[in-house]
């Protein structure tokens, strides 16, 4: 299955990436996708995502392997930012093209749950009073646990 897994150091356009993905998979009956952005909450000025070369992208590839094993897809895209981002900037785009709708949905849902809680990223936010390290929300852990067999 063709897949496109990238760790991006610069800003990107999810709409453009999705358009290219759809073009690359004319045979798919449906494409499910999710775009996650830096929430313009409170007084967060900058979000920094830190990745580690030896683990982060390899971990994303391993996740893609697992998604491919679990669902029948025509194509899978996982793009994730690293580095500094401002509120409103896209962080992650996951898209799955499949013959059957449910496969596409579940593949994206699963990949997002894992990216949000189990992927090799470390995060800090710059607020009015300086930088703060962020740990995953309990909700994200619970989301990921839904898939554990």
């Amino acid at each position, binding site marked *: 299955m063709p897949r496109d897994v990238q760790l991006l150091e610069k800003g990107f356009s999810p709409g453009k990436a999705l358009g290219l993905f759809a073009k690359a998979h004319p045979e798919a009956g449906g494409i499910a996708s999710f775009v996650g952005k830096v929430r313009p909450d409170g007084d967060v000025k900058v979000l920094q995502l830190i990745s580690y070369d030896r683990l982060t992208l390899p971990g994303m590839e391993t996740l893609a392997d697992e998604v491919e094993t679990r669902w029948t897809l025509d194509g899978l895209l996982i793009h994730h930012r690293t580095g500094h981002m401002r509120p409103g900037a896209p962080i*992650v785009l996951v898209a799955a093209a499949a013959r059957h709708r449910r496969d596409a949905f579940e593949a994206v849902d699963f990949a997002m749950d894992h990216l949000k809680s189990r992927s*090799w*990223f470390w*995060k800090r936010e710059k607020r009015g009073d300086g930088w703060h*390290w962020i740990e995953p929300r309990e909700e994200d852990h619970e989301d990921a646990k839904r898939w554990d067999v």
Partner: protein
Amino acid sequence: MAVTVVFIGKLADLAGEDEREVAAPLSWSGLAGALGDDIAAAAADERIKIAVNGKVLADKTSLSAADGDEVALLPPVSGG
């Protein structure tokens, strides 16, 4: 004869740098000597993981890094 130690996240704050070269070999018991007591104490926290050349150790006390190896000290992930 060096091991590269990579500090991630909070641990980079603690170390004051992103990575450091230390003398090989590097074992769990040699961590305090090589990196100082503060970092060795932080590394002992059960939530901190250690990877050698991109492979996370199931038991970090089994750490045994040789010349040219990269050892990473990993705080709990925040997720993407």
